[in-house]
């Protein structure tokens, strides 16, 4: 009877397309919004993830994220270096500064000072230029997204002079960086340069980046650093998660995206429910005739389930495809740089679609099951 159910379903093109549209639209909305939401959240930890050379981040106990931190005294570096199990420890400074572009515009930027000798703290990949160029006087690297904001497309960026807090800075390279949550232009320089660019208080060092010695568990090392120095030490994964949690706890983003996702679900239920009900109502006489002939309620349930599953699978596939196309086509746009769809999101959307169809299918089915076979004689 399954093929009969499918012929009943697909025979009415308008309603079939309506059902597909409802499921596909809901899937698109749920997957697209959830993907944007998750990727925005993940940007809260991108600054941490970009530094692949550090296993443990050490900071003032009051610090919470890369952007929300309290500087430490320079002596913190030596105290951390004194802990057993460390391969190396390097200072890092992050602070905001004002950049004057060649055409006179002012732009707030995040200055990131990395270790003078080893450049630990720099992102792994360069978009343009060579890492060694950072050793040149007044050298700075821009992040690729920020560079496109500061310079016209096609214009010369390398070797361009800028004013950073009224001091000379020369662009020597463009780093390939996934944007952070704040979306400020990121400007990398050596630690000693950063101290010059960012006037500040007595304490200037934001973090100590630690690499665990071979065979040492970073979590164990972090605990040991905390115990011996009194500073807060988090593994790369913990600190990344802290950045994400900070956004969840301190912004309205989860609520807003949650509302959109819920609306996607509700709209889907409304469209699918209404169309499915109309479809069932239009076929109620036929279902009644089938029941009179001798088709059991179990088989009728199977038919409606087959119809729901068929619509669900195709609609879900189309919606997922549309969401994927969206992210593929918008990938070159800086806003969506690095966005990807974690596998959990299609699973969540699949569950949502299944719930939607079970709910609407159940409501539609009630009318069929309530129909007495004798109704067909009236």
């Amino acid at each position, binding site marked *: *009877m399954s*093929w*009969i159910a499918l*012929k*009943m379903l*697909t*025979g*009415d093109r308008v309603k079939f397309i309506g059902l597909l549209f409802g499921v596909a639209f809901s899937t698109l909305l749920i997957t697209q919004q959830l993907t944007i939401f998750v990727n925005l959240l993940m940007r809260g930890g991108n600054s941490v993830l970009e530094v692949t050379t550090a296993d443990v981040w050490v900071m003032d106990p009051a610090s919470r994220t890369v952007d929300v931190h309290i500087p430490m005294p320079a002596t913190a570096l030596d105290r951390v270096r004194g802990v057993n199990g460390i391969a190396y420890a390097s200072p890092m400074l992050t602070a905001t500064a004002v950049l004057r572009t060649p055409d006179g515009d002012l732009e707030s930027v995040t200055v990131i000072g990395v270790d003078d000798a080893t450049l630990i703290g720099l992102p792994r990949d360069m978009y343009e230029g060579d890492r060694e160029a950072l050793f040149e006087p007044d050298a700075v690297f821009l992040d690729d997204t920020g560079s496109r904001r500061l310079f016209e497309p096609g214009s010369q960026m390398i070797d361009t002079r800028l004013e950073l807090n009224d001091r000379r800075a020369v662009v020597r390279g463009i780093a390939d960086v996934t944007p952070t949550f704040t979306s400020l232009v990121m400007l990398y320089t050596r630690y000693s340069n950063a101290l010059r660019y960012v006037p500040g208080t007595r304490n200037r060092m934001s973090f100590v980046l630690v690499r665990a010695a071979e065979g040492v568990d970073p979590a164990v090392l972090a605990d040991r650093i905390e115990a011996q120095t009194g500073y807060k030490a988090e593994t790369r994964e913990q600190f990344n998660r802290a950045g994400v949690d900070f956004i969840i706890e301190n912004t309205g983003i989860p609520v807003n995206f949650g509302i959109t996702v819920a609306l996607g679900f509700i709209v889907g239920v409304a469209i699918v429910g209404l169309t499915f009900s109309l479809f069932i109502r239009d076929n109620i*006489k*036929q279902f*009644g*005739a*089938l*029941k*009179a*002939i*001798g*088709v*059991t309620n179990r*088989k009728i349930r199977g038919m409606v389930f087959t119809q729901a599953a068929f619509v669900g699978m195709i609609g879900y596939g189309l919606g997922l495809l549309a969401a994927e196309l969206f992210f593929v086509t918008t990938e070159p746009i800086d806003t969506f740089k690095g966005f990807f769809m974690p596998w959990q999101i299609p699973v969540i959307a699949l569950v949502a679609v299944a719930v939607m169809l079970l709910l609407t299918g159940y409501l539609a089915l009630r009318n069929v099951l309530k129909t*007495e*076979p*004798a109704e*067909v*004689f*009236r």
Partner: protein
Amino acid sequence: MSVGIAIENIVKEFPIGSSDTIRVLHGIDLEIKTGELTYLIGESGSGKTTLISIIAGILYPTEGRVNVFGTDIYDLTDTELVNFRLANIGFIFQQYNLLPTLTAAENAAVPLFANGVDRDEGVDRGCEILDALNIRDQAEKLPRQLSGGQQQRVAIARALIHEPRLVVCDEPTAALDAGSGRRVMDLLREVALVPDRAVIIVTHDNRVFDLADRIIEIEDGRITHDGKDLPDGH
């Protein structure tokens, strides 16, 4: 000819409002023989459709017994009754009730599909019975592409394809013009009437009364005429 269906003291009441009921059938006793074309006639609201629904096993009586070919059908469980209908009863409806997205051959084979017959075999057998009903050339068409008479022939094919022992028809000519109605009834008599099958037709189409072997008239839920001839006033 033998007795195929025996009904005893059938009473049917329908609820009206929250506590009252209306009695539609008042203790009907009746035997239907095989090999006969039996007409149930009567005014609208007389109870003939209720009676045929009870005989066909799709409406529980308030009181009484219905024995169809040796089985007291209302002693069966719901599932047994559904299966009994599928195996033993063929239905022809006034509005045909064909599935609009299935072809004529597929519609004819619906009882076979409900019984688990696979699609190809069902369609082949559907084509065979449509051939017997002289509409083999319409087998691939959808119901909306057929005339009313052709649709009713497909409905007859559907009612007979699984060779049921009882065929019930509700106003099979009501939606047809005189010529088509006559042809459908001739055909029904020709193909449906076999020695071990009972055929009951609810109708008030007096143009086809002459084809009946037996005419039963119902008025106000009681049998008022039972015989080969037409009751007075028709």
